[in-house]
């Protein structure tokens, strides 16, 4: 008799809270968002999607966001891996270095953007230094210099968000038993070979997590670029902000947000496929 009452499996009970939370905070807003983007006062409409596509800022925003990911992520991972491997060598004050390197993690996006704004502004620190050296300053953030604007955003984002990758990679490295590395060394593998065939393959899960996280976050780059360039270098999430807040058109804003969501999901799925461990067979 008492067995009958426990009909709902424990697993379902255990995942129920997260299911409820996910539905309330993720699935439901998603449904509402799709509704908002594709229905107007007279029923279903593509008018908002068309306005998004016709807007002169939309395609530049797509291009800039894609370019940012393509440039930023590889550089960022190279930096983070190098830093993590340096820390792995246990230099003096390794703990201190680690803390210094993760400081940007604790700083808000907007604050970081403002700090870099004071560096790149027309009369900012960088131009002051150049002026001191007798070089004419550059209008880094002028709408005429798309390349330097982009560079400024890449540098600021690199500074701000590399620490996240570093933390994940360091944690991953700590989980790798020393034995494999030492065994490879005993058999005469060089540092490069050990890195290529021993360390990196075991780091794959961490790298996968970091890649997915960083790509999604890079798609959502907003505050830093907003502080540095405003709308001169449009990015997708900046455009949702612009449409929602400044132009007060939530429908077009959600349409753009759905584009970001779709690309994020595609990217995550792509990484999961690409970095699948083929040595594990079912």
């Amino acid at each position: 008799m008492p067995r009958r009452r426990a009909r709902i499996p424990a697993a379902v009970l255990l995942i129920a809270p997260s299911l409820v939370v996910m539905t309330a905070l993720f699935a439901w807003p998603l449904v509402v968002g799709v509704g908002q983007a594709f229905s107007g006062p007279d029923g279903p409409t593509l008018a908002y999607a068309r306005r998004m596509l016709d807007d002169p800022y939309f395609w530049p925003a797509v291009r800039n966001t894609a370019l940012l990911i393509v440039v930023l992520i590889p550089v960022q991972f190279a930096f983070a891996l190098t830093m993590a491997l340096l820390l792995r060598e246990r230099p003096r004050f390794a703990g201190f270095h680690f803390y210094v390197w993760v400081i940007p993690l604790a700083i808000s996006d907007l604050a970081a953007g403002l700090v870099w704004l004071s560096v790149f502004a027309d009369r900012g620190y960088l131009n002051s230094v150049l002026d001191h050296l007798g070089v004419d300053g550059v209008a880094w953030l002028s709408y005429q210099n798309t390349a330097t604007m982009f560079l400024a955003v890449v540098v600021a984002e690199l500074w701000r968000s590399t620490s996240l990758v570093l933390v994940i990679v360091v944690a991953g490295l700590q989980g790798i038993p020393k034995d494999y590395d030492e065994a490879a060394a005993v058999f005469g593998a060089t540092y490069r070979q050990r890195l290529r065939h021993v360390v990196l393959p075991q780091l794959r899960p961490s790298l996968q997590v970091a890649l997915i996280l960083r790509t999604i976050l890079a798609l959502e780059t907003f505050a830093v670029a907003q502080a540095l360039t405003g709308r001169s270098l449009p990015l997708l999430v900046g455009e949702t902000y612009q449409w929602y807040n400044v132009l007060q058109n939530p429908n077009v804003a959600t349409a753009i947000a759905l584009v970001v969501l779709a690309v994020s999901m595609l990217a995550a799925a792509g990484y999961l496929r690409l970095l699948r461990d083929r040595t594990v067979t079912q």
Partner: protein
Amino acid sequence: MTNRINDDLRISRRGLLGLGLGVAAVPALTACGGVSTSGADGGEGSVSFLSTQFTQVEERQRFEKILGDRVTAAKVAFNPVDASTFGTTVKSQLDAGKVQLSLLGGVHGDLAPHADRLMDLDDLLGSLGDRGFTSDLTDLAKLSGSTTKYVPWMQATYVLAVHKKALEWLPSGVVTPQMTYDQFLSWMTAARQGNGNKPVFGIPAGPKGLYHRFFQGFLLPSFTGGQVTTFRSPDAVTAWQYMKELWAQTAPASTNYDSMQEPLQRGEVLVAWDHVARLRDAPGDKPGDWLMLPAPSGPKGLGYMLVVAGLAIPNGAPEAAKAKEVVKALTTGDVQVDVLRQNAFFPVTNAQLPTDLPAAVGLEAAAVKRQQETAGAIVSLPPVGVGARDAEVGQVFKNVFKEVCLDGKPVQGVLDSQAGQLNAILDELKVACWRPDPAGSPCRVA
């Protein structure tokens, strides 16, 4: 042993966290109980005054002081909100029949959509005959109907601020104050050459700048005689070609300027066009070095944008009689001059301007008067009846500027595609055209 200590610690930490959350939640929850949607509450019998003007904290405080000092007829609870909150509050209170507001203050475009919700004020306006409102303003106040819906409150516009240093490059034959757009362009070109090839002219084309008002109220009306209907006419192409030439003589840093008084003060530009309230601090303590000029005129006349604010009383206002007294007080010469002195909004009455005005305001007052009285002036209004979509309408004009002047695209193609965007917005709104376009309904680009 260490484990044990850790366990104890964790429990107490968790307890502390819970306590902290509880403490934080108490004020948050209690706050929910008494949220006042109408903001400032002056208590029973006071006049609740909802306004889209003076939302900025300093301006609000200065205006509240004027209300406290000068308005003795009733206690006024002044509550400034942004335009879209204003619209929804007025609509919901009146449509639900629970009117708490007694007085509404907003620019023409804020009040126009609520014409049916506003009390007729013909009697009040009639009793204010000595104020000397111009017929231009009292006609507007009818909101296209036959009765007065608001009493003019104050006005503002946009002018040119000029540092006298720029006058040395004035080409021969060009005289201030009144020049044509072509003369202005040749002046700015000469000034740029004279200034070591650095442009001296600036416009507020930053993210929060009001440069779309230049196109809507000055450039396009002067060249085409219209704002919306003529948006892609051959005259509009000429206007934007002109703008392209003018932009070539304009400081590129303009795309970062939200208000022109700062770059003028820093000497980054010497000549700038902006809203009077955003030019007020430019002369600083050297007003003798500065001029304020009316905008140039184009082939169709001198187009200028008039920002007129009015005071209206909603139907069913709980304190309508007192609100009328407040309107009377706010249109007296003293209060009109106080508002000009403190918040740089110009009188709508024949108030005598005192000689001890802040120098910059005095300069502006002369330019505003001259601009208004120029023969062939074309008055434009900021978009009327578009409510929260005003920013989107403005963005269409900004997009044309971006594509024509910054990206160098062919003018006609840009105008055609942006006309489509503008019509998409206007088709949804179905509003009548506003000045200077002929009042056809619904308003569309021809």
